[in-house]
């Protein structure tokens, strides 16, 4: 079957999911099925089918499963957010529409995405600039101790890190495409360790170093993890040299240890990660309350969950949150609470499938830049999922990164749509019959 027909068929589960999900929430709330849930479902389906037809016209050969997987994630996200709060769901739906618009725009504007290479320095410096924005007094926005947002009064709030990550990956893919041979050939053994040559690796180190510095200034540890991981990932794909990655990990470990012991709030996060159930830490402001309640929530979920809409999110009576930030950072915990281990596994599987399709695109791509771009974008996406779910499940300390397409957050959903658009562009070119 042709790719686009497969894609259309694959969209059916997504729309069924969203309709059933909304209906479920509605029945929970008002003991009746109402027009609203059917309307939401219909609109969603309409939008997805519309996007599908657009892809049919513009990218006939692109991977057939990426968009449906995204549609499933996004619709699942909207249903979960709707269950938590209907006003936020409306907002998220609006962001979804905006995301689709940018998705379409990206595909149209960057049809020939290879011209991105020409502007790589512009792109990277703009990205670094974007990263700096939250620190600018007046428009910077602090959340939970991290400078994550830019608040343009009266207009909107956005998180530049989400967009910056795409820019940085584009730069990295392009730069390494040019220098990857040189890095391998010119590698020096210093003290028994193989290091890439400074001449060629220098700019990457500088730029990435700047990015890390900015992120540390922003107290956005989660994003720094993500970006650093993406760097190592693309570097490995580009050069094939495991030693570079090992060196990178060591450098990371050193940096992490330093930050962990010298910066108070990083130290707090590590403490909370290691001892979430310590009563002093639990009750301390900025302590382990969030992580502890995240695992309590998951314990309440068990294998099959408590049932959709059944999880306790607030203290009845006072309305105080039992689980802080349920629709952003903690949404994975809510999913596990309500849908259990099976639900969480299904969600993780969906993300893994998307990552698989992304890497498949990278393999099928025929030129180095496309390969590196696809690999880089997929890596940064996959790492984002790992960082937030890892924080919620205590694999790593908790950070303030969003779960792509599922967490509430406009910048996240829009930027990730742009990311997927780029992947589909690469995919179309890659699978085009020669």
């Amino acid at each position: 079957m042709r790719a686009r027909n497969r894609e259309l068929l694959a969209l059916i589960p997504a729309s069924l999911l969203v309709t059933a999900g909304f209906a479920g929430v509605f029945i929970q709330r008002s003991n009746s099925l109402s027009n609203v849930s059917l309307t939401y479902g219909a609109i969603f389906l309409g939008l997805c089918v519309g996007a599908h037809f657009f892809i049919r016209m513009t990218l006939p050969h692109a991977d057939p499963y990426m968009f449906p997987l995204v549609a499933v994630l996004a619709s699942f996200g909207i249903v979960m957010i709707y269950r938590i709060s209907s006003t936020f769901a409306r907002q998220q739906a609006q962001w979804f529409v905006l995301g689709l618009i940018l998705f379409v725009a990206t595909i149209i504007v960057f049809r020939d995405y290879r011209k991105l290479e020409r502007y790589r320095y512009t792109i990277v410096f703009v990205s670094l600039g974007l990263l700096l924005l939250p620190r600018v007094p007046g428009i910077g926005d602090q959340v939970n101790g991290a400078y994550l947002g830019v608040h343009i009064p009266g207009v909107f709030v956005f998180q530049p890190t989400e967009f910056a990550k795409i820019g940085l990956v584009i730069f990295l893919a392009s730069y390494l495409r040019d220098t990857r041979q040189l890095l391998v050939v010119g590698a020096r053994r210093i003290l028994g360790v193989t290091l890439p040559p400074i001449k060629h690796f220098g700019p990457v180190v500088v730029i990435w170093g700047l990015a890390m510095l900015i992120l540390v200034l922003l107290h956005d540890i989660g994003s720094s993890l993500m970006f650093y991981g993406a760097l190592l990932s693309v570097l490995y794909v580009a050069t094939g040299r495991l030693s570079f990655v090992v060196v990178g990990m060591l450098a990371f470990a050193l940096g992490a240890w330093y930050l962990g012991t010298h910066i108070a709030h990083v130290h707090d996060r590590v403490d909370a990660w290691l001892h979430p159930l310590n009563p002093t830490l639990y009750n301390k402001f900025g302590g382990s309350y969030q992580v502890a309640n995240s695992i309590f929530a998951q314990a309440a979920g068990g294998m099959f969950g408590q049932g959709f809409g059944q999880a306790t999110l607030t203290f009845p009576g006072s309305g105080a949150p039992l689980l802080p930030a349920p629709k952003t950072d903690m949404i994975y915990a809510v999913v596990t609470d309500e849908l259990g281990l099976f639900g969480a596994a299904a969600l993780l599987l969906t993300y893994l499938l998307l990552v698989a399709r992304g890497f498949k695109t990278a393999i099928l791509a025929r030129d180095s830049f496309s390969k590196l771009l696809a690999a880089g974008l997929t890596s940064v996406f996959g790492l984002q999922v790992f960082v937030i779910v890892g924080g919620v499940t205590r694999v790593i300390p908790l950070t303030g990164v969003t779960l792509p397409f599922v967490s509430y957050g406009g910048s996240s959903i829009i930027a990730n749509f742009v990311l997927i658009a780029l992947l589909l562009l690469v995919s179309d070119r890659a699978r085009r019959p020669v």
Partner: protein
Amino acid sequence: MNASIVRMFGLFAVLFALLLGWTTRWTVIDAKSLRDNPLNKRTLVDELRIKRGRILADDNSVLARSVPARDNTWSRTYPTGQLFAQPIGYSIALLGSSAGLERSRGDELRGLQTGLSSIFGQLSSRRVGDDVYSTLDPNAQRVAMQQLASAPQLGSPQGSVVALDVKTGAVKVMASLPSYDDNNPHAAGTPTVTTYNRATQAGYPPGSTFKVVTDVAAIDSGKFTPDSTINGNSPVTISGVPLSNDNNASYGPISLTDALTQSVNTVWAQVAEQVGRPTMTTYMQRFGFYSKPPLDYPPDELNASRPFSPHGKPYPPGSSNEDIGRIGMGQGGLQVTPLQMAMVAAAVANGGKLMVPHLTDKAVDQDGRTVETINPKVMSQVMKPSTAQQVTQMMTNVIKDPQGTGTAAALGGIDAAGKTGTAQVGIQGSNLTQPWFIGFAPATNPRYAVAVTIDRTQGEFGGPTAGPIFKAVMQTLLQGHQ
């Protein structure tokens, strides 16, 4: 490069496996210990999700029910409020605090026996509790509370009425004033709005009503008969201290029956002394004195009725420090609950068989199946049926005889048996009294026993003050359950 890309995917598979593994750890492996962790408030919140069963009166009217509150939780509401607040109690799941039947029958109300049940048909445990049927009679309770409120007394209304079904031990009335609104238990805590249940917790001097106990001991032990003659002169030295009758009236030689009819203190003090402390103690214990009654009520809301030393310490049963003479006529440091005195009357009424008192008689689950039945059980055989017959005769005389102290309790048409009491409370010379009345009806084939007391009055007597309350409550009970 392709090889590297494949390996990258492999890495991500491992990373995601880690995520799944940790999720499994919290959802399955460590789940129980996390749920039991004291920092975890979810179990508490889950308690709020249980729809507790209703508590119903003997006419199936609702005394307590759960209503939906926010966030899928339930909150308790009490349609009768003050009327039944004392026996029903309250339950505030969020604070884990409860009282009364809400506490003592908490497990049934939370449906602990029926296990999982689901309202929304989902794989979650939505529990619905069992309905608990109480034995309380709303009409009689209402009459009791009204009567207590309007009785002549000093200050704001304070008193208690307890009514028992003598054949089954079922508690028909448990009234205590002041009461509180159990829809808002936090407002309680003042002298006029209180959760203190006088029926089960108060330690009152029983006054002459205790003479019934002495009477039973005297006749059942064979030492006396209703026609035995004792010297009723006043004063008489009991335990080295002079004891006098009311108004220091001297009666000369008087029969036991008359001594009960007219409540002659000196006679009963002598009778108690002659019956002897060990025998008196045995009968007291049979009646339930010295122990908390086996009521389906929280133990810390129950008090044992027994004599106390002047220092406030309870005497070990049969202690040689007890002034058995004075105990025999209702003093001697005796502190009793209205429930205990109702049990005294009920034992006499039921041919000497004291039944275990109970506030509830069954629990029914949401599907209508009876999951628990409380059958009438004998608590003790206090006296021989013949003794009960004779004491009943004497108590009937208290009400029937024109010279009797209990004429105000006459039911008109049906013979009732009873005993008045007027305890001196307050300091010497203050003339503060606590009127009492205990009794049962009908005298032939008795059905209900009632104990009434008003905390403090200015010189009022048990007969005229508590008697009418007994009458009103008894008539309501008899009419309602014909």
